[in-house]
């Protein structure tokens, strides 16, 4: 007859896999309670304090393959005591065994499995629907019996009216390992994301530069970058760059770019010398299909002069305090693609209170599905609002004009706004 699993406690500390298994089991234990209520009218509650990790075998098994947790396939096992079997069979005789009997030519346990096949399937599907957000998942597939592969199991006591039931969730060890590895990898990527964010200059740490910025990488780390440097004598440099591609590897290169900018964009060098030095290093660093576009805007706050160096980058949006917004046309070579660069900077007289915006192409290209050469023009209409808003809010306001939960970006996005 039924043999409940060994209830002895696992002496070793729980692994990452154990923790995941326990979490999944809480959900399945609740589902199991629903099935018991459905099948036998038994009110049961899961008792996680008695959760038992280990290998599990049962002669009465219902295994559920559910898409609950995406890539992790779960097996759902119910072990019932003798009186529960009797109860279920009694109910089954009245309700279900008769119509199913032609297919059930076996022991009581076979009958029970057949009952659970139907009931468990229906109940689990309803349970998933009731949880919300799961109704779009495909129906759960229920099998009466499978040969369990190498599984790792947690069993939980469901305290019912007459006796404890054992509810167990088992995961194939290979699936569990994949899930744990996936979680580990995601954790590392989160660390990369945090590290990259720490590379970026924060406006609160550099108030004299009077800027605000937002950075939205498509993945955990992105190929866009910005930095702000003090060039001395009232001059500040604002650097926005975009490494070709927006994958994680492009993100890793950004740490190198930050070092290059901090090392070369200093009062000792002219901006042109700085850019030539950066190009020389990138030329040796990047592979043949890689390059970087960048915009380096140098603002002389004493002379009220803005000099823009554009290295194949979308143009700076200038927001004069009086007058219409316009783009600062300047062009120049890609960085890191060729040995030499040609840059034709633009010099503009600015006034106190004017603002200008540096950005990457992901801001304007994602929704328009057109290259920035034409899609950038959509920025002009937002000029008045960007001038009236608090400086700190401008990047998020502009980002919000293009993206939301219904229209996520398809590329990394940086927006940097400066007030003269």
């Amino acid at each position, binding site marked *: 007859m039924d043999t409940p699993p060994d209830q002895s406690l696992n002496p070793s500390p729980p692994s990452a896999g154990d923790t995941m298994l326990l979490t999944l089991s809480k959900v399945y234990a609740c589902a199991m309670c629903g099935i018991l209520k459905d099948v036998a009218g038994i009110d049961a509650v899961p008792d996680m304090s008695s959760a038992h990790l280990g290998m599990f075998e049962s002669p009465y098994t219902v295994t559920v393959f559910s898409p609950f947790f995406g890539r992790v396939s779960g097996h759902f096992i119910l072990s019932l005591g003798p009186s529960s079997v009797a109860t279920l069979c009694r109910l089954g005789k009245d309700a279900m065994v008769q119509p199913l009997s032609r297919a059930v030519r076996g022991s009581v346990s076979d009958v029970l499995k057949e009952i659970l096949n139907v009931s468990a399937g229906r109940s689990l599907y309803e349970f998933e629907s009731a949880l919300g957000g799961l109704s779009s998942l495909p129906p759960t597939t229920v099998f009466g019996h499978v040969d369990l592969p190498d599984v790792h199991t947690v069993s939980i006591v469901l305290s019912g009216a007459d006796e404890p039931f054992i509810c167990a969730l088992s995961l194939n060890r290979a699936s569990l390992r994949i899930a744990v590895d996936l979680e580990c990898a995601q954790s590392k990527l989160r660390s990369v994301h945090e590290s990259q964010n720490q590379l970026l200059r924060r406006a609160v740490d550099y108030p004299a530069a009077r800027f605000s910025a937002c950075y939205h990488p498509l993945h955990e780390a992105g*190929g866009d970058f910005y930095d702000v440097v003090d060039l001395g004598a009232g001059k500040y440099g604002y650097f926005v760059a*975009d*490494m*070709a*591609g*927006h994958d994680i590897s492009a993100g890793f290169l950004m740490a190198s770019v930050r070092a290059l900018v901090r090392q070369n964009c200093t009062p000792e060098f002219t901006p042109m010398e700085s850019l030539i030095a950066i190009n020389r290093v990138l030329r040796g660093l990047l*592979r*043949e*299909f*890689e*390059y970087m*576009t960048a915009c380096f805007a140098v603002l002389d706050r004493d002379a009220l002069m803005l000099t823009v160096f554009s290295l*194949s980058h979308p143009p700076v949006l200038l927001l004069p305090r009086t007058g219409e917004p316009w783009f600062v046309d300047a*062009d*120049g*070579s*890609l960085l890191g*693609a*060729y040995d030499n660069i*040609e840059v034709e900077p633009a010099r503009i007289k600015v006034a106190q209170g004017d603002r200008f915006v540096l950005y990457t*192409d992901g801001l304007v*290209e994602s929704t328009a*599905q*057109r*290259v*920035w*050469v*034409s899609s950038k023009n959509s920025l002009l209409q937002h000029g008045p609002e960007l001038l009236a808003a608090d400086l700190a809010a401008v990047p998020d306001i502009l980002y919000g004009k293009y993206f939301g939960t219904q229209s996520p970006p*398809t*590329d990394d996005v940086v927006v940097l706004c400066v007030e003269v």
Partner: protein
Amino acid sequence: MSEAATSAVTVSPEGNIIGTISRRFREELTNVLAAGAINISIDMHLVQMIDSTGIGAIVGVQKVLSERGGGLVLTGVSDDIQMMVKIMHLDKHLTIR
């Protein structure tokens, strides 16, 4: 040098070169390069949008072809992309027809 090697191999993208398509575009160009091409022509008449990975593929191919003594030609280029190519100074490294 054989005639086949010196005559231009034409690559014809069937739409915008963005996202995963741009990576496939790069792979296709890499395969053409691996086959020994010296001159490549890219027919861009169905392309209205190209992302940085796609531009990177064009830049990379152009450099390899230049080292081989050949070149890259873009045909059927939209006004927007043609302007972008010029702003990027890439028109100094490849031919637009």
